[in-house]
Every structure is written in structure tokens, then in C-alpha cells.
């Protein structure tokens, strides 16, 4: 049935939520993303919520869970484009989305992911180990 599409751009997965999410669709997205991170060895997940008019505790929990799952799978999650009214409401609701990184828009989110990927690659690049970042995606 209706699922939220996940796009792959380089080693980043982009999710743009464009509809008022029903709870089961949110849960499906959470699972799909986990599968897709493993399948594509993605390094980052970008979730664009600029079209969302509200984020309640359920969606908030979904975002936190996605961030935790992707961290376990060695990918960074950045949530971008939250509307000001949504942010104010979330704070009042008592939800701070701990563990979720945020950016103003998709561009900045991409830059943020690129920067943190670089840092990690630097850490992993001592000469004696030779090349380590050849990511071969399993066949489609």
C-alpha cells in the first residue's frame, strides 16, 4: 500500500515526507529505512519534514528511533526543514528529539552529512591499512 518513497543519492538516503502520516505508514518507513541502509550501505539518512504541519509524539518517536537504528547501522541521520510552529509545539510538548541532528534545509543537511562522513574517513585512513573506503553496494 502507500509507503513513503526512499531515494538514494550517492551514499545518502533521502526521505521527503509529503503526506499527513498515518501511524502504520510511519512504522513502515522506519522498517524500510533500516532495510535500505543495510542493502545500500548508505552512510547518511536525510529526512525532509518541511511539508509536515505537525509532529506529535508518535512521529517524534519515529524520528528518534530512525536516528538510533541508523546509528547502529553506522549511518548518520539528519532531520531537515522543520517549521518554526512545529518546533515551538514540540518544545512545549516536552520533546527535544534527543540524538537527532537537525539542519535548516536539504542543502545544509547534505553538507552536514558530507562533513561528518569526511571526518570518519579521515579517522580511518592511516596509510598502512591501505584503501578502506571502497563501498561496493550489493547487486540490486
Amino acid at each position: 500500500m502507500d509507503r513513503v518513497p526512499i531515494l538514494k543519492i550517492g551514499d545518502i538516503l533521502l526521505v521527503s515526507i509529503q503526506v499527513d502520516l498515518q501511524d502504520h505508514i510511519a512504522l513502515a518507513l522506519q522498517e524500510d529505512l533500516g532495510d535500505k541502509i543495510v542493502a545500500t550501505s548508505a552512510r547518511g539518512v536525510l529526512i525532509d519534514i518541511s511539508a509536515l504541519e505537525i509532529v506529535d509524539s508518535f512521529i517524534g518517536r519515529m524520528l528518534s528511533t530512525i536516528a538510533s537504528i541508523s546509528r547502529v547501522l553506522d549511518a548518520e541521520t539528519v532531520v531537515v526543514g522543520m517549521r518554526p510552529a512545529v518546533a515551538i509545539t514540540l518544545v512545549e510538548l516536552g520533546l527535544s528529539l534527543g540524538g537527532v541532528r537537525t539542519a535548516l534545509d536539504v542543502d545544509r543537511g547534505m553538507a552536514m552529512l558530507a562533513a561528518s562522513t569526511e571526518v570518519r574517513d579521515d579517522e580511518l585512513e592511516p596509510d598502512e591499512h591501505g584503501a578502506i573506503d571502497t563501498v561496493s553496494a550489493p547487486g540490486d
Partner: protein
Amino acid sequence: MADAAVDKGWATLLRRNGDEVVARWSEAAAQSLEGRMTRAELERDVREMYDALVAGVGEGDRHTLADASFAELRALLADVSHTRARQGFSSTETAVGVFALKEAMLGVLEEHGDLAAYRSFADFSRLIDELGLYMLEVYAQAREAVIGEQADALLELSTPVVKLWDGIISLPLVGTLDSARTQVVMEKLLQALVDTGSEHAIIDITGVPAVDTQVAQHLLKTVQAARLLGAECIISGIRPQIAQTVVALGIEFGDISTKASLSEALLAALRKQGTDVVRRTGRRDR
């Protein structure tokens, strides 16, 4: 009408001499409202009030405005008071419309009344006083509302968000921060972050006279909301006495960065952004 023979008080008089009462009432009210509204408007208001009053007056002469039968009259009076308050009428000008009915009734009494009617005038007068007080009460509430709206408008004006640098905006706060004001401030700041695509905001509280637990709470919420958008806030302009109260009250600013002055905050924001500020040597000392 049923007990017309028994009931000779003001209520009967009022009901029987409708046109005359309305005419005299309008006349009396016009004297103080001259120029504020047209005669036609005034007569329409008076006619409406008269109809509602008569509709609410049952048998007998003793009534109070709280009677259930006066619901329509109350609504009408509230409506009139509201309109007057919004149009800038004074409280006297608002209430005089009802008080003029007393004068009108006295006139009618002289023409048609008997002893019984005169005796009941005290009851009538009491009721009219109630109407007047009720109007004044509603009038005061309406004025409060107008003042509230003006305060809101002032709030909008008094919260400018300024761009300090590419990607850095500042919000100089002046005056006391209460919960209503903070909400406006928060909204403006967050919207400005999104509109300008800025990742840094400096909230300068040099002009805030005191920081108590509540103000601190509001500041923290603003900073948290900004983070959810993907922006960082620095709080600057913390005067020594404010630092002391903050510590004395045991307020935790957590991991929010604070700076003593706006310029230091700007420098910190520039650094985080990756912009270096370098003073050229040798050129200034000529």
C-alpha cells in the same frame, strides 16, 4: 395586558406609550450624543432597546436585569457597549443612552401617570441603574480588550530581528519577558532563522531588567526550538547582577553558550561558522 386593571405601575405605562417613550428617550439621549452618531442611528438603537426591555418585562414592576426574561436585552446592551467602546465613545457617552430613559419616563409620567405609577418609579429607576452599570461593565471589558490588542501590536513592533552577518541574526531584547511576549519573540526569531537561512542567532538580553526562573525557562525553550530547526543560539549581554541572580536561583543554562557582550557573541558565532576575523597590522598607526 391581562391584569391591566390591577397593574398600573411603570411597566404598563411603558408598554402603552411606546412611541412617545421612544421619541422622548431619543430626544434626551441625543442631547449628550449630539454629533457622535446620527439621529437615525440613535433612534434605531433606542427602538431596539425599548423592544427588548418591553419583551423582557412581564407582570408587575419589580424586575432585575438578572431575570431570565432579560437575556435578549442583556445581549443587546452588551452589543451596544462593545460597539461604543470600539468606536471610542467615553464611558459616560455609553451609559447615558440608557439613563436617558429615566428622563423620558418622567416626562411620560407627567402626561399620563397616576399615583401608583409614580410610586413604582423607584423600582423602575433601580432597574435602569442596573442596565447602566451592566453597560459600563461590558464597556470596561471591551476597552481592556482594545488595550490588549494595542499591547500586542506594540509587542510586534518592539521585537526587531537584525542581520549581523551572513548566516548570523540577532534579537536585542528590551524590557520584561513574560510568557506572551516570549511566544512572539520565539516565533519571530525562528521564522527569521528560516527566512534568512541563518544557522546562528544571538539573543541579546542587555535590555532585560531582570532574569527570573520563568524568563530563563522561556529563553531555554527558544534555544531548544531553534536547535530543532538546525540553528544554534548564543545568549549575550548578561550583566554581572543578572549572572548573580541566575546563580543564586540555581538556574541551569545547560549546554547553551552565553557571552557577556554582543561583540563577543558575534565573534563566537563567526568562528563556529568558519569565518576568521583578522586585524590588519601596520595600517592603522599612521
